[in-house]
């Protein structure tokens, strides 16, 4: 008889459903009955019966299996964590961890300090990066689709014209809208006390496109606020409203002067919104095309080629930046060709970038710098973690016995790992908390720092620690914790039980100790490198201060004066400067008054190649390099620049008379070589045909661009022959009465023009310090990093030395017992402990020397072999290294040999 088979799928389900130990019995029982049923009632009924059996078995079987699983899970937790008592267990772990850590205060302190330093450095740097790159600008809620639009020429960003803007805004299909803006510093004020502020002229759709709302009044609206039909109105920021207008509740509708031009204030922004650029704070918004002096007027806006505006826009949903860029480039090029067919050969590259608080042109640079900084602090944290791992490895070996005993007594490995990880996490929590607190302090310090910026310019970085920074700190803390604890912990709980129980001190493998030596060698190398470089930087600053600048800034105060704010004509401007100088000179207590277009070191101007009759220009050049400054009479006296020959400028050196110049000593020596240059001529441009200047005087050399520069050709031209509306007022007062004198200057100024920003003189030294700022910052950063490296290096050397020496207490005891001198033993330990650090330090020293050589080409005043920098830093590093080894060595040698030997 043909055997009837059970339903295949039903049987398969049953097979996989039933517990393994019951499976065979159950299935065979069922098969038995199936066979009987086939015989009794036929295959069909039997098969149906079988299927029903399987279906009905599912519920109970699944229930059974889940309850078995649940029970197993529950009992597992009862055993290892104590489902209900897990909190107690954790408490116990933590209590034990605290006790263990407190038993070793030096280790604990070192570990917490290391973590705190590393985590605070990372958190602080990240909060700067966060503030610069990631923090949303308050008020701009909808950044989706916002893009920055700019033109690139040879890879460099350039501004575009209003007419291109108009074309792109009207024709683009990929953009929902496009707005344009330009930064413009303006003077703001009623009829008295105007002040300089950072302004931004914007197209009518600026606010709507950004999606920001006014706190008071209204903003410019897209339908009525486009050039040329712009009314005279302005929107001010909440900050300006509070600080400049004392939160005047009736501000709306009042008029104020922008560069002397009357505008109505129609709105105030909400707090926090200071324009769409993250770091640079705007104070006032004026419409593009506002008819005021000192802002872009019709001639700039009519010219389709003028580069006066920057753009940003919002793409339509689903449009990518590449697509938008392609369309905008094509539109712009078509428009350009329309204006001038020759434009075709130049092309027109419009670039579209995603939105960010940092403007596109500088974003890449900022990001690179941020990445380098993050890398550096990351390195510090990694170095710290290596140290900790090292220390824990050492402790792990020390604790081998304890751990071996606990394992031998039946403690689970998981339990031990948990215990050791609890210790590590406790360190991370304490170190991380300290690190975040320190970072908060550091960022507060950064924010309180005010670089000596020109008046009116404010930088506002919100570096406050937010959730993103907190999350970052937690993540790096946990990572650091895992980095330094996991490997040593796993190793520690897998000891070779027998040697550990037998108290064999040589348990640590030689390979591992070689690794430790290598690590501390590297650390000390890095320490030495950073410290010497920091020393070189610091010394370069003192070198600079010792260098003879040629001028004397003592007692000199400066203040910018910009007549563009007042809409002065050329003639009126010249008169104004003469009048101002005369009036200030008359103030009692004033020693000298002068104007100059540029500060010393504030850059230099050139009128092109300079030629002197009788000197052929260098091959391939049109003349000699020479730079100039525009100054008023009295400038040389003010700056203590001796007039060696001839005379200073005077008020008769005016436009319409022969152009005159005062040259510096280098130029006189070079081209007149002992002859008297007074009355001779030189030319800006080709000799004989260029603009001729009659030499009327020779002054002592000074430094013009950087303090370390070589003497260069330099000449001065009189202010009245070369009008510049932007000058720096220089005043020198008799010491002690500055306040009274400045008050009188302000009064004089107000009498002359109530619409101009009032001068706020500050010491020239302060104004100059911005030029050495990058160097100062570099010195600080290298110094701090060097110090951190020194601490970490010391901790590392100390940790490794004290461990390896503690492993040798028996040997030391034996040596002393056999009559060795304690000092001999100590010096032996130092010698052996310092081998790796010494090699590291030598390499670091060589690297620092090489770096100094390289840096000396870019850092003025930096001497790559500066003996003071080298000697002091080498001494410090070596001293710290020796101490770190000597302390544990001395401790070991001071132990009574009987104690260590008896411990056998």
């Amino acid at each position: 008889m043909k055997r009837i088979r059970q339903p295949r799928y039903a049987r398969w389900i049953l097979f996989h459903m039933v517990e393994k130990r019951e499976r065979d019995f159950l299935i065979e029982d069922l098969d038995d009955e199936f066979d009987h049923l086939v015989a009794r009632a036929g295959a069909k009924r039997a098969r149906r019966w079988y299927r029903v059996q399987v279906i009905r078995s599912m519920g109970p079987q699944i229930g059974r299996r889940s309850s078995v699983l649940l029970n197993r899970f529950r009992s597992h937790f009862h055993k290892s964590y104590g489902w209900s008592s897990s909190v107690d267990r954790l408490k116990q772990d933590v209590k034990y961890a605290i006790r263990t850590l407190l038993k070793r205060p030096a280790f604990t302190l070192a570990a917490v300090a290391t973590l705190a330093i590393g985590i605070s450095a990372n958190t602080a740097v990240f909060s700067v990066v966060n503030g610069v790159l990631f923090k949303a600008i308050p008020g701009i809620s909808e950044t989706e689709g916002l893009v920055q639009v700019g033109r690139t020429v040879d890879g460099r960003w350039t501004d575009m014209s209003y007419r291109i803007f108009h074309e792109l805004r009207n024709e683009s299909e990929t953009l929902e809208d496009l707005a344009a803006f330009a930064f413009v510093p303006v003077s703001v004020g009623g009829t008295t006390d105007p002040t300089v502020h950072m302004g931004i002229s914007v197209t009518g759709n600026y606010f709507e496109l950004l999606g920001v709302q006014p706190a008071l009044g209204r903003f410019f609206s897209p339908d009525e606020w486009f050039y040329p039909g712009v009314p005279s109105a302005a929107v001010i920021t909440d900050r300006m409203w509070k600080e400049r207008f004392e939160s005047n509740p009736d501000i709306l509708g009042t008029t104020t002067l922008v560069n002397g031009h009357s505008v109505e204030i129609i709105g105030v922004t909400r707090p926090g919104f200071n324009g769409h650029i993250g770091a640079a704070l705007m104070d006032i918004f004026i419409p593009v095309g506002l008819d005021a002096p000192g802002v872009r007027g019709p001639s700039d806006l009519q010219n389709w080629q003028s580069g006066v505006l920057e753009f940003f826009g919002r793409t339509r949903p689903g449009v990518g930046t590449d697509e938008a860029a392609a369309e905008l480039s094509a539109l712009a090029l078509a428009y350009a060709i329309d204006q001038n067919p020759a434009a075709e050969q130049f092309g027109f590259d419009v670039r579209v970038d995603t939105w960010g608080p940092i403007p596109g042109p500088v974003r890449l640079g900022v990001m690179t710098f941020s990445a380098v900084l993050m890398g550096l602090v990351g390195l510090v944290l990694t170095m710290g973690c290596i140290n900790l791992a090292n220390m824990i490895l050492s402790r792990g070996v020390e604790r081998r016995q304890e751990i071996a005993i606990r394992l031998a007594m039946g403690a689970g490995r998981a339990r031990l790992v948990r215990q050791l990880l609890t210790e590590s996490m406790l360190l991370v929590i304490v170190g991380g908390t300290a690190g975040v607190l320190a970072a908060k302090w550091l960022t507060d310090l950064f924010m309180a720092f005010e670089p000596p910026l020109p008046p009116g310019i404010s930088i506002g970085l919100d570096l406050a620690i937010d959730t993103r920074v907190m999350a970052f700190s937690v993540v790096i803390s946990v990572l650091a914790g895992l980095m330094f604890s996991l490997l040593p912990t796993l190793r520690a709980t897998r000891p070779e039980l027998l040697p550990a129980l037998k108290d064999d001190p040589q348990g640590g493998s030689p390979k591992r100790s070689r690794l430790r030596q290598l690590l501390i060698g590297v650390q000390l190398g890095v320490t030495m490198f950073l410290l010497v470089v920091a020393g070189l930087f610091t010394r370069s600053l003192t070198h600079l201060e010792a260098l003879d600048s040629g001028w004397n800034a003592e007692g000199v105060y400066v203040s910018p004066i910009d007549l563009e704010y007042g809409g002065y004509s050329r003639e009126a401007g010249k008169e104004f400067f003469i009048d101002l100088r005369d009036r200030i000179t008359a103030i009692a207590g004033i020693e000298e008054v002068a104007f100059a277009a540029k500060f010393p070191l504030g850059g230099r101007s050139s009128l092109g190649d300079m030629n002197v009759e009788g000197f052929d220009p260098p091959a391939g050049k049109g003349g000699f390099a020479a730079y100039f400054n525009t100054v008023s009479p009295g400038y040389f006296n003010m700056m203590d620049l001796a007039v060696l020959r001839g005379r200073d400028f005077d008020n008769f050196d005016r436009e319409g008379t022969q152009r005159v110049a005062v040259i510096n000593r280098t130029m006189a020596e070079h081209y007149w070589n002992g002859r008297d240059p007074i009355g001779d001529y030189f030319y800006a441009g080709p000799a004989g045909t260029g603009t001729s200047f009659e030499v009327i005087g020779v002054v002592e050399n000074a430094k013009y661009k950087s303090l370390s520069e070589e003497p260069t050709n330099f000449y001065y031209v009189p202010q009245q022959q070369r009008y510049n509306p932007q000058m720096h007022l220089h005043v020198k007062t008799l010491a002690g009465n500055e306040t009274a004198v400045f008050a009188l200057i302000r009064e004089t100024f107000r009498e002359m023009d109530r619409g101009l920003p009032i001068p706020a003189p500050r010491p020239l030294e302060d104004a100059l310090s911005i030029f050495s700022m990058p160097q100062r910052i570099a010195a600080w950063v290298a110094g701090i990093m060097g110090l951190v490296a020194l601490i970490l290096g010391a901790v590392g050397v100390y940790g490794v030395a004290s461990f390896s020496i503690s492993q040798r207490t028996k040997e030391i005891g034996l040596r002393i017992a056999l009559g060795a001198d304690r000092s001999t033993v100590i010096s032996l330990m130092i010698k052996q402990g310092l081998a790796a650090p010494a090699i590291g330090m030598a390499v670091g020293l060589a690297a620092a020397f090489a770096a100094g050589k390289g840096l000396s080409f870019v850092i003025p005043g930096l001497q790559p072999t500066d003996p003071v920098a080298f000697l002091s830093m080498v001494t410090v590093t070596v001293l710290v290294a020796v101490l770190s080894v000597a302390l544990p060595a001395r401790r070991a040698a001071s132990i009574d040999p009987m104690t260590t030997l008896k411990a056998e």
Partner: protein
Amino acid sequence: MNPIKQPFLAEFELYVMLAVARLGEKCYGAAIRREIEERTARPVSIGAVYATTARLEDKGFLAHRISDPLPIKGGRSRKYYTLTKSGTDAVRHSAQMLNRMMTGLDIIAESH
């Protein structure tokens, strides 16, 4: 396990225990299934029987032995169940409780 809970048996558990008591020596899964099905006239799945016997074994009420393979070709082993001492106690306890609960109730008289 909670000792107070121990004597109480769910209805189907009680059926299985009673079936095991009835079947004596030849008590295995399929036999229990048939016994309950025949006596209570309600369909019983083999899966339910095995889930319950396993649970009762966990509770210590049932014990089993694996038989030698049956003396036929391809003969297999069977898992035979017996009541343990505490199993017998539990059945007795359950029956007593049931009795006490039912004493004097009219519904019982009416159903017979």
